[in-house]
Structures are given as C-alpha cells and as structure tokens.
C-alpha cells in the first residue's frame, strides 16, 4: 500500500479541524496542512476551555478546591478527587484509615472503568460503529447509578475530603458492585465480538497513529497511550500509593503503539480494574472511615450541635482564614488516572489556602504528541488517532 506522502501532488490545502468538530469531544482545534488526503503538517491548538483552575487554587481553601477537581477530567471525577486529596494529605503528613483507602481505590477503579467505557463508546462512534456506543453506555449507566447512590451526584461527585470521604458506602453498595463486576466481563465480550476482529475497525485503527516507546517517553506520554507502545509503566505499581500495594493486578501492554493497541490496552485495563475491585471488596476492612483528626476533618454533626468542642472544631475547619492548615513546603504527588499520570504540585505557605496549585494533566502532554502520530498519515486517521488519545478538554486546558 502506498503511504499518504507517496501520493502527494504538491498542492497544499489548509483544513481547520475543530473547535466545533463532533470528534473533538469538547473544544480543541487542529490545523491540518493537506496535500490531497495526506497530512503534511498538523498543528494542535489548546486553550478554548481555559478556566483558570490553577489560579482558583490560590483563592479557595483546600477542601473547597475538591469541587474544582471534578471539572478537570469530568469523565472520571472520582480519580481526580482522589489524586488531589492524596497530595494534600501527603503534604500534611497524615494517613487516612484503611477503610477509607479501600473505598477510595474502589471508587477510583470504578471510575476508571466508567472513563474507559465512555472512551470506547465515543471512539467507536467517531469511526462509525454506532452499536458499540449503546452497549458501552448501557454498562456505564449502571456505574453512574452506583456513583449517584454513593456520592449524591452523577458527574460532579466531590466525594473525597482532606482526611477522608464524604460518607461511607451506602447499604447494599457491595451487592451492586459485585453484580456489576460479575456481569461486566460478559458485556465487554460482546464489544470484543463487535470490534476486535472486525475488518473495518482493524483497517481504521491498526498501524494508524503509531509512536515508538522511546518517542512516547520523550513526549511525556503516560497511561494507556504509553503502555500501548510496550512500556510497562503504571504508577499504581511503580510507586504504589494509598493501598495499591495490597492488591494484585497485571499491567497490560501493547507492542506497536498504534490506535488499535491503545484500544486493546484500555479493554484489558477494564478487566484488570474489575479484578482489583473484587479484591478490594473481599478485603474491605471495618472501622472508622474518616481521619479522627479534628483539625482536618469536620466533626460529626451530633458533636457540632451538642458539644462546645465540636462546635469550635467545626468553625475552625470552615471559617475563612482558618481551615485545614497545611505546613509550609511543596510537594508533587502523582496518581494513575484513567488517562495517565495526573499530578498535583502544591506549594503551601502554611495557611489554609494553597499558595500555588499546579495540575500536571495527562491530556495536555498526550495531545502535544498528536502531530507526531498524524503527520504522513491520511486525513481520515485524524478522527481515529484523536479518539484513541482520549483528550479531555477540561483537563487539557484546566
């Protein structure tokens, strides 16, 4: 088969892809320089959804900022909540009770499955496979019901707190989750039969948008996009945070680093997440959920209403200029979010508000490598490659 560039005729055309293209899932733009249907040059543009999240971090106190983290990768807010409070807790030097750690891992893994499911549905939809979208949203809906019952919200969960979580799991949560993970592998198999050996799907994704492991590291790719190149790096294994060292799971890797491998890696990650969830449910410890440190956590409502100490603690945590006081210093904490390394670099001046909160978003660096994957390919591959990267605009621009 001739490559795109071999068919070049020498006439150039500039095509504006986005910011309102249906395949951009949000607002981003790629300027494509084309010769016929082959891409000579691709220039991605970001910033359409810039919301100033980092600036807000310097004006909101540590607990208020959790609400902002929901809106970064809005497809897996629970992972963002987790990553952020972990950074603050490490800066504080506290460790939350075991049960809380397990609940957070449970929620983070469920949201990884939900994120990958949405990615699967929309990436397939972009390439014309409509029914996959329906299958994956059917499963995703079950997860969102669990999220809604646990956190009270479907999308903007704000579930974690510095030193704990909003509340314990609801009664019957374990049965709901167990039912989900027992049905899910079968449901995912249906998708495998629809796509994995599908001639059209393979033609559209195999060998499309490839990147080598060396280049991927040079570009700072993380998550499934890095693992698809064969680099078996997962922060849950490399620097096990929270209680990830107590669960066993495999890190799936690809070989070619193309769109098809990214698809396969994500599919297998969902199965691995279910495995983690089952282990977490089996070993879920009893005991307190939240840290008992009243300088950090809000006291129980009965205490706040019934005892003067409780009331004082309540005010101290809530009042402007008090809040959770984080010792002076800086800290970088990275977690493995569904898209890759989500890092929070927090600089504290010792007050209740962050001095500087820097978010290291996986999408920003993954999107940067797009020209490398596109150039020399065909214009229709743009949709396939962009879909396989799963760029989330909220996280890209923050």
């Amino acid at each position, binding site marked *: 088969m001739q490559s795109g560039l071999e068919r070049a005729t020498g006439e150039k055309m500039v095509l504006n892809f986005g910011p309102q293209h249906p395949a951009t899932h949000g607002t981003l733009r790629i300027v494509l320089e084309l010769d016929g249907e082959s891409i000579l040059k691709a220039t991605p543009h*970001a910033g359409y959804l810039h919301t100033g999240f980092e600036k807000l971090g310097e004006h909101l106190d540590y607990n208020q900022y959790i609400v902002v983290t929901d809106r970064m990768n809005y497809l897996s807010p629970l992972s963002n909540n987790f990553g952020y409070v972990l950074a603050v807790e490490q800066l504080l030097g506290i460790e939350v009770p075991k049960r809380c750690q397990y609940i957070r891992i449970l929620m983070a893994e469920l949201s990884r499955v939900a994120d990958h499911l949405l990615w699967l549905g929309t990436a397939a939809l972009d390439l014309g496979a409509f029914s996959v979208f329906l299958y994956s949203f059917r499963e995703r809906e079950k997860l969102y019901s669990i999220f809604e019952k646990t956190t009270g919200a479907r999308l903007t969960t704000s579930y974690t707190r510095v030193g704990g979580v909003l509340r314990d799991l609801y009664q019957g949560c374990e049965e709901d989750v167990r039912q989900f993970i027992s049905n899910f592998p079968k449901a995912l198999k249906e998708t495998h039969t629809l796509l994995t050996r599908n001639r059209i799907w393979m033609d559209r994704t195999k060998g499309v948008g490839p990147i080598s492991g060396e*280049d991927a590291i040079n570009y700072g790719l993380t998550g499934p996009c890095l693992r698809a190149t064969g680099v078996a790096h997962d922060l849950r294994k490399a620097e096990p945070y929270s209680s990830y060292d107590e669960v066993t799971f495999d890190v799936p890797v690809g070989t070619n680093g193309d769109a098809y491998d990214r698809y396969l890696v994500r599919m297998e990650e969902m199965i691995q997440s279910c495995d983690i969830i089952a282990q977490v449910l089996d070993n879920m410890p009893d005991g307190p959920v939240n840290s008992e440190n009243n300088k950090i956590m809000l006291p129980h409502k009965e205490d706040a209403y019934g005892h003067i100490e409780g009331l004082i603690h309540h005010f101290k945590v809530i009042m402007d200029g008090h809040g959770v006081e984080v010792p002076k210093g800086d800290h970088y904490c*990275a977690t493995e979010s569904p898209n890759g390394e989500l890092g929070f*670099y927090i600089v504290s*001046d010792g007050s209740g508000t962050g001095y500087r909160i820097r978010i290291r978003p996986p999408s920003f660096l993954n999107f*940067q490598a797009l020209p490398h994957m596109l150039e020399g390919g065909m214009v229709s591959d743009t949709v396939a490659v962009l879909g396989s990267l799963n760029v989330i605009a909220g996280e890209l621009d923050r």
Partner: protein
Amino acid sequence: MNEEKEVEEQSKPLVLEKLEAAHADALLAQDEVRGTTVVVVRKERAYAVLEYLKTDPELAYIYLVDVTAVDNSRMESELMQFDYARFMVVYQLYSYQGQCRVRVKVPVHENDLSISSATGLWRAANWLERETYDMFGIHFEGHPDLRRILMPDDFEGHPLRKDYPLRGRGERERFNFDKQNV
C-alpha cells in the same frame, strides 16, 4: 560524631552524590523531602544540570514530567533564601530505571526572565514551557515556538503572577480571530 556523618552520607541518594561530584558549583541548595530529591540550581547552569540528569546512564531521568513556575513575590521566606529571585521555575523529572523522582528548581530574577529552554532534551518541554511563558512570562531561550498556549495570542499580562487579579482586568469585547496566526 564521625560515625553519624558516615551514616548520613551513605543514605544520600545517588543523584545528589553524582550532582555534587559533577556540578557542585551549580547547586544552590539540596534537600530530600517525602521521597523526592529536590535541588536548587543556578540559572546559568540549569541546562547543563538537566542534560546531565537525562543523559547520565546511571541516573537516566529520561521522562520530563512537568515544567512550571511559582511566583514567590508573596512569600518572603522563599524570596530571602534565593537572593530575592521572584520566580522559581520547577522541573519534575522521573527515572524509569531507578523509579525515582527529582525536582529541579531554578530561581529566576524579575529583571532577567530568560532561561535556557529544555526543548532540545525533551520534546515534552515544548508545550510545558509555552504554558509557563503564557502564565508567568518566563522567557525560554532557544524555544522553537514560544507563543501563548492557553490564553489568546493578543492577551496582555500573565495570569498566574501574584499581582494579576483573580477576576482579570476588564472584559474582552470580542476575540480578534483575523490576527491570530494559525
């Protein structure tokens, strides 16, 4: 006393040991906080140190995690520590080989905002440095394409500086799309 010193030196991470041997004159401060090695490096030598960290086969910090800056103008203690340099450019590096992190901080004075670009070492640095330029106005010398990335091209000011108000300066009537270079 001597014994204690010896123990201390043994527990020193490899990266600090090697940096002290190869770039002792570039180091302004060093620390080990929560499992991460932190080094503060003289601006003129920053590129050399980053290159050393990346290319040394024993260290191999081949993954540039993040580049950002901190405006220390409201934090007196930090200002005093490094000769009243207003900005601190922060590089986070990760080594797949050693599975460890190092944080390189470079003080930058307000009257000379230029610093060598790391784009020659990592392609990841391209957008990260553009964002740092956009938000703080740090000028990365040798960057191939130093434009704003998140804010519009004709935006004035650098929003993450501490003297930039949270609610911005005035409202924008319209975006001038014709002038933007694509």
